[in-house]
């Protein structure tokens, strides 16, 4: 086992390809650390992949496209672990919308309320 | 060539073959070649033009009636052949008196001249019309393709086609002039007059 944890990616083809090129991809005999979500990918698959990544102890960060995160928001809401960290990232078709990001909501509330 | 034929009935070669052919035969071959080659030229041209025209009209149907003119140009070469054939056919006259042998004072030079003349007139029309037909065909094919892309090119290429078509006219003009001098003698020459 190498040192360091993996970065898992759940996203559309562009996002996943990009990160794979950056070198996060890891394929072992029975599992991968990424999931390409296409239009015909079932929601259940996404949920399973997310739960799987979040339970693996070699995963440090889970990157997930925001529009996909919105689809499995019900799962994300119940997610309370600190590690792996779930990070919502923009995708090509869906520019980043801070309004939908749970963390950004908190940040804005705090900064807005604090000022 | 070990055994050279020495009999008087032996064929002495192409020269003898050609000189022994009847001038009527030559004249009629002239008509046949003139018409036949012209029609071959026309058909060839129409094929070249037609296939391109049909193909190009799939995507640009507007060219279909305009470019029929190319087909008509090709057709014209056949018509030249037909005209020439009719002119030549009218010039073949059989002798007034029917006999097994031509009389001694028959105008043999004129007779042969007419035969060879009409043969070559027919051949020149036929060959020029093949060339003309093919060249009109190629130009017409390009015309159809060009017109399909840009309608303004049609007239320009049509001029090229007209020049190609003119090649056939050269042939028919020369052919007519050539055949003008050809008169089949119909009676024996008047001796002493």
């Amino acid at each position, binding site marked *: 086992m*190498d*040192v*360091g*944890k*993996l*970065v898992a990616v759940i996203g559309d*083809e*562009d*996002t*996943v*390809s*990009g*990160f*794979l*090129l*950056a*070198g*996060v*991809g*890891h*394929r072992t005999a029975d599992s*991968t*650390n*990424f999931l*390409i979500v296409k239009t015909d990918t079932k929601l259940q698959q996404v949920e399973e992949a997310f739960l799987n990544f979040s339970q693996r102890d070699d995963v*440090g*960060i889970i*990157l997930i496209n925001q529009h996909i995160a919105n689809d499995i928001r019900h799962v994300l809401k119940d997610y309370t672990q*600190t*590690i792996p*960290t779930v*990070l919502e*990232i*923009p*995708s*090509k078709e869906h*520019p*980043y919308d*801070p309004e939908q*990001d749970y*963390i*950004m909501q*908190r*940040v*804005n509330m*705090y*900064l807005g309320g*604090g000022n | 060539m070990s055994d050279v034929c020495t009999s008087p009935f032996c064929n002495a070669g192409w020269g003898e073959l050609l000189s022994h052919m009847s001038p009527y035969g030559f004249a009629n071959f002239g008509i046949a070649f003139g018409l036949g080659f012209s029609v071959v030229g026309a058909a060839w041209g129409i094929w070249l033009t037609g296939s391109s025209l049909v193909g190009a009209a799939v995507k640009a149907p507007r060219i279909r009636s305009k470019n029929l003119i190319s087909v008509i140009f090709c057709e014209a070469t056949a018509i030249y052949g037909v005209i020439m054939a009719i002119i030549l056919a009218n010039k073949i006259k059989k002798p007034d008196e029917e006999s097994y042998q031509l009389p001694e004072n028959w105008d043999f030079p004129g007779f042969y001249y007419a035969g060879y003349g009409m043969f070559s007139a027919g051949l020149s029309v036929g060959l020029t019309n093949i060339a003309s037909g093919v060249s009109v065909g190629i130009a017409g094919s390009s015309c159809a393709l060009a017109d399909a892309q840009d309608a303004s090119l049609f007239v320009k290429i049509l001029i090229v086609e007209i020049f190609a078509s003119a090649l056939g006219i050269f042939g028919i003009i020369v052919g007519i002039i050539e055949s003008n001098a050809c008169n089949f003698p119909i009676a024996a020459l008047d001796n002493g007059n």
Partner: protein
Amino acid sequence: MSEVPPTRMNQQVFKGKKKAAESGHKLLKKKADALKVKFRDYAKMIAETKGTMSTDATTAFFSLTQAEYAAGNFKQKVAEGTLTARVRVGAGIDNVAGVKLPVFTIYETGGPADNQSLGLIGGGKKVVQVRERFTVFLSQLIKLASLQTSFVTLDEAMKVTNRRVNALENVTIPKIQNVLDYIDRELDELEREDFTRLKLVQGKKEEVTVNVSDATNKMSKLDINQDKDITATFDAQDDEDVVF
């Protein structure tokens, strides 16, 4: 509170408790403030990083588009073949005011890149550009991930600290104060009771001495006048003092 026996001993104990609670409150308050400052910093940093992240993301995705224009559709090939993670994250720990914050650091194994010859026939340079852009984006994201984890952890820590501060301020200290007050009151009461008792005892004692002296006087002199004198020495007003 009633279970606390109001003794001097206990008073001392509770005074100590109060002092401890107050200093604890002060410290926690300080910690809460420190956390709050940090928390604000993180919040600001997250807001900033998320802002730059979205521009990074745009350039990263656009480089992908450029590469696709130059190299054709190569995306499906990226996920093929064996892959070994070249970029991993190391988890360190940062300490802010006693709160342990997880920190991710980008960590490259230095292994060879997968599918190195992508775009060999054309567009290879653009593919390299995609690798670079996405690596930048990724490092940005990893930074953000640290910030975000810290943010959540700090948030949690702050909640706990604030709860403690509030608990000390609003529950524990008043409770101790109440106990102290009660002990004070009870002790005062006891004191006053003692005083009365003492006075009574004193009065009784004096009565006894007077009676004794009366008896001796009676016995020695047996004089009625002397009896009057004795009552005169007892001032009526003096007596009132002892009457409750």
